[in-house]
């Protein structure tokens, strides 16, 4: 491959006024001998761009190094064919002149180092070879409830074939068999029986030509990758002798919904004392029976114990919800459903007193209107408080509730004929394989893991050191990292619902509806559409060889130099997306379609056999080596290497520049795909080169992580533990490396963070390896 490097230094945007551009050109020429090296006063103008284009055509320049603004700016202008031209953006505006004093030697040195690193990277980079394939574009929808039906019909409408798998013999899911009302439009105070619209939707799905439906079926296994999943569908009923059916699938929407929390665990709320204590789901079922499956709206609610019509009923909200002993989260739907049920009782049993005992009423948005309407009903009594005891007076057939912390200023007793426990939602995201299975999987159990949603004493979330999922029974993936999507917490599939809704940590598999987070039917309808769009995106991007979120359109992917592999399995364990399987010996089997191009595997590999065409341990090391490290131990000669995550930290630095806030000139920033992609070799290279300190700027990790690759920044911090041994061996202080968790909006904290670290390093003194 020809390395025809063209270096173009822009002097616009005050770069020319702050730096000696001529000196930059000369230094670049002297040090790197590029084919072309010129400066221009406005590279992003038509003249400037044409200049580059002319060199590409006439001088066959194929590595374009543009020293100008941030790589986040002018992407549409410096837009050359990525398959034949490598475009390297060197940020001498935001990261140099906007944060440093003008016409200063240190500023000049900073710019020179950045240009040097840019040229080095350009020289070392190859052109990506996208994996363009003819892939299957069928969408598999798992679950035929409200979410699943909407996902299926919307996929079909968008022109995609759909395979719908439903465990039961009928579509319609949870609401189908319940007396379920559906408030579909603002102000959400009209209770429309769900039957009609649900049946319409079911008919539509059943008659759609593009939708193939498997009822009474479940998934035996899923193998492969997006665009070529092989799905084995088998009868849900084991006595059914029908064979296994194979389907090839492009991407998957998981709409398996929820199941009610096991009320048997709520005996402290009186469940089981008398048939008159029932759950909200059981009440819905009772309504369904009484109404003749919704045919008759006028029925009287009667006590299960003696068949007399109910005169007083209490709803106990948050029954086993928002409770560390049971479900620690809010299921969002119980408040509305209890209010709705209360409305029905008030309508059909007009003399009845309805008590709603709540911690907080949560009726978000326009649902508030419904709450207010119900609150104003003279027969509905809202009780803020905690139910402390439930007892049953057998002689009078009365349930006695003791309520603590009420707004009456004390505890109260309530005598009711019926009590309804508003139990929460548990996601249908697979069952946890317990006890011996867990031990076999060698999962690193931590003691402070929250209790899982289904109540099993197994860890629901996966510790960072491993990515093994101890669940099965739903998708039954044949992935090396386990059978199901990893959880974030409480059994919900990992999906940072603020930043990346519908994403799971399995590329091409998108959870939607109440399996993703608790939600009601109205929200599920929209959720289905969102997940379908994600699924379509995945199929289309993957068949073009492009990555999906968050490195959308990236055509590179890691290359494994397998002959040198030591089968240490770190890459297969640490890949946040389970993209790498392994054979019996432990050799990685990489699935490019599942890959998100974060580079975590590259960072993990101790023998450095994993690399991207334009991003590799070697490229990083070479960039570090290209830095000029002055030997004289003065304050301005300290060199701090900053690895900045491209997703949050790098833009934060840009914004700091935009605000023209000065930052220490001792720092040299290298953008990385993710902190998880930093290979430990870079630290040792940098320190032996004479770099005095290394600062890692990356995303927040932990339960409310913001890492775009879920575990990258956490892995970086985890790997530092090993690094400390290396430092000790080199007789270097471990304080020379520091990781900071940074949000994009934290940019104003950067000067302090950098200043603090630079001072710390200065207090340690210069790197003793300087000059060796």
């Amino acid at each position, binding site marked *: 491959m020809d390395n025809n490097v063209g270096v173009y230094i822009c002097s616009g945007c005050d770069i020319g006024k702050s730096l000696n551009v001529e000196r930059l050109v000369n230094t670049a020429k002297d040090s790197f001998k590029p084919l072309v090296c010129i400066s221009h006063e406005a590279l992003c103008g038509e003249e400037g761009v044409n200049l580059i284009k002319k060199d590409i055509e006439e001088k066959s320049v194929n590595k374009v190094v543009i020293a100008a603004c941030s790589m986040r700016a002018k992407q549409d202008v410096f837009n050359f064919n990525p398959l034949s031209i490598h475009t390297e953006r060197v940020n001498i505006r935001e990261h140099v002149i906007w944060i440093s004093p003008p016409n200063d030697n240190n500023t000049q040195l900073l710019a020179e180092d950045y240009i040097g690193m840019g040229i080095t990277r350009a020289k070392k980079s190859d052109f990506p070879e996208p994996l363009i394939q003819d892939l299957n574009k069928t969408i598999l929808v798992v679950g035929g409830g409200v979410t699943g039906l909407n996902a299926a019909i919307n996929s079909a409408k968008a022109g995609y074939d759909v395979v719908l798998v439903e465990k039961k013999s009928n579509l319609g899911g949870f609401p189908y068999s319940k007396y379920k009302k559906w408030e579909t439009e603002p102000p959400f105070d009209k209770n429309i029986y769900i039957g009609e619209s649900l049946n319409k939707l079911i008919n539509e799905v059943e008659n759609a030509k593009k939708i193939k439906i498997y009822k009474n079926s479940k998934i035996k296994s899923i193998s492969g990758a997006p665009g070529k999943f092989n799905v084995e569908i088998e009868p849900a009923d084991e006595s059914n002798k029908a064979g296994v059916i194979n389907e090839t699938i492009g991407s998957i929407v998981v709409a398996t919904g929820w199941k009610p929390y096991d009320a048997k665990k709520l005996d402290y709320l009186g469940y089981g004392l008398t048939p008159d204590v029932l759950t909200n789901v059981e009440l819905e079922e009772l309504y369904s029976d009484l109404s003749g499956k919704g045919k008759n709206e006028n029925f009287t609610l009667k006590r299960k114990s003696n068949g007399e019509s109910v005169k007083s009923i209490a709803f106990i909200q948050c029954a086993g919800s928002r409770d560390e002993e049971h479900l620690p989260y809010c299921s969002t739907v119980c408040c509305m459903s209890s209010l709705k049920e209360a409305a029905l009782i008030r309508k059909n049993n007009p003399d009845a007193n309805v008590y709603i005992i709540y911690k907080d009423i949560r009726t978000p948005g326009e649902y508030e209107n419904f709450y207010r309407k119900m609150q*104003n009903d*003279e027969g509905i009594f*809202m009780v803020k408080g905690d139910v402390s005891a439930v007892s049953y007076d057998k002689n009078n057939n009365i349930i006695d509730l003791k309520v603590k912390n009420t*707004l009456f200023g004390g*505890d*109260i*007793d309530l005598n009711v004929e019926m009590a309804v426990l508003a139990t929460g939602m548990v996601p249908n995201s697979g069952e946890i394989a317990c006890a011996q299975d867990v031990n076999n999987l060698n999962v690193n159990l931590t003691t402070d893991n929250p209790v899982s949603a289904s109540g099993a004493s197994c860890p629901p979330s996966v510790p960072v050191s491993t990515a093994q999922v101890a669940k099965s029974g739903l998708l039954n993936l044949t992935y090396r990292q386990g059978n199901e999507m990893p959880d974030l917490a409480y059994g919900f599939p990992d999906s940072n619902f603020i930043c990346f809704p519908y994403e799971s940590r399995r590329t091409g598999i998108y959870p939607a509806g109440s399996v993703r987070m608790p939600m009601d039917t109205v929200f599920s309808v929209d959720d289905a559409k969102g997940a379908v769009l994600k699924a379509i995106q995945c199929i289309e991007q993957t068949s073009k060889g492009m990555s999906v979120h968050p490195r959308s359109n990236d055509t590179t992917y890691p290359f494994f130099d397998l002959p040198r592999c030591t089968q240490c399995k770190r890459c297969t364990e640490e890949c946040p997306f389970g993209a790498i399987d392994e054979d019996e010996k432990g050799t990685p089997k990489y699935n490019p379609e599942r890959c998100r191009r974060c580079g975590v595997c590259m960072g993990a590999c101790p023998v450095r056999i994993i690399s991207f065409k334009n991003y590799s341990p070697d490229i990083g090391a070479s960039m570090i080596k290209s830095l000029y490290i002055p030997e004289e131990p003065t304050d301005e000669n300290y060199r701090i290497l900053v690895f900045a995550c491209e997703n949050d930290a790098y833009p934060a630095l840009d914004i700091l520049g935009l605000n023209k806030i000065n930052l220490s000139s001792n720092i040299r920033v290298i953008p990385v795909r993710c902190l998880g992609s930093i290979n430990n070799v870079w630290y040792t290279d940098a320190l032996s080169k004479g770099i005095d300190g290394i600062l890692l700027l990356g995303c927040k990790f932990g339960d409310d992580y913001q890492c775009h690759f879920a575990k990258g920044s956490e892995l970086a911090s985890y790997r530092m533990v090993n690094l400390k041994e290396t430092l000790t061996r080199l007789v270097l202080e471990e304080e020379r490396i520091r990781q900071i968790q940074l949000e994009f909006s934290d940019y104003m904290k950067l000067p302090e963070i950098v200043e603090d670290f630079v001072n710390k390093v200065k207090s340690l003194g210069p790197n003793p390896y300087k000059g060796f």
Partner: protein
Amino acid sequence: MKNTAVKTDNELVKYIKEVGESNFKKCFQCGTCSAVCPLSTEDRPFPRKEMIMAGWGMKEQLVSDLDPWLCYYCGECSKNCPRKAEPGELMMSLRRFLISAYDWTGISKILYKSKYAEYIAILIVALGVLIEWAVLFGLHPAAGATLAQAVSPDKIDYFFDWPITAFLGVMLTSFIYNMFRKTVLSDAGVKIPLKLYFTEAWSLIFNFFTQYRYAKCDDSEESSSKKLASGKYNFWLTHLFLMISYVILFIGIVFFLDWFQAENSLPYLHIILFDYFASIGLIFGTVYFTVKRLSKKIERSKFSHHTDWMFVILLFLTGVTGVLLRASIVYNYSVSAIFYIYLAHLMILFPMLVIEVPFSKWSHLAYRPVAIYFANLKEKAKSLNNENAEIS
């Protein structure tokens, strides 16, 4: 502490809803109302407490509650309520409820529930007056009779004034005793020493004649003179003026009816008192409140129940016909004219007295100072008990 066994009564909730325009069920107990109330104290966090008791229909607690009478409806709570639940109006509704709760006959409840019932009741009393009048004096004055012959003041006294006074006295006393039973005697936690009833009596008299708590409705830091100048005391003073005028006239008519039927126009004290001060007070006061109720600009007058209107209108008409009657006597109108004006006056006055005094809005004149008196009694007794407990 023992748990309160809560009994809810949605019939009561319905009734309280009917007798006012408060959305008290919308309350979510934030407590803003009690925090902004200038009169509410830490021990008596009204109207917050009443909001939840009403929302729950807690009859037992509501009936024994004196706090609605301690509220003078400045409206700060309603203004600041985040749910627009109108706590001020709830206190008003509760006063209506309490009037019907103290009334053992059950008449007030009917009058409060239905405006037609009130109209009919008033018509019945007016008709009764007409019949009684016809029996006593006929439907026409005898030709050539003097006023004293045509309408004998003695007969008015014997057949109208004194029986009605006795009736009202018995009714009101029995209702107040009922109130005493429900609010003071029912409270097992408080034993009131006999001595206190006398030492605290001043609060009854003081509050009756000054309605001083009205002045406390504005707790801004301005000086009283400034408040007076900026009209912040207008409502209180007008109300006081009206009330004093009413009381003066009532006493005058019951005990000194002769004076009213005499043609003296010399500036005696009673002439100044009755013909000028009290007449102006009655008419000015009722017009003032009518204007306020029509304009609905202040919280106090935003909502008007039919009993409110009836009370103001009857009082106004009583005043107008009374002044007309007095003028016709002083200016020597023909006896037959005076005869009919007199009849009309009584046909308005007596429904006002019979219906409004014990069974409707008028009764607050009695209940308010009595409630303050009872509340003081209970408070003093409690602090005495506490002191004793500390000593022992």
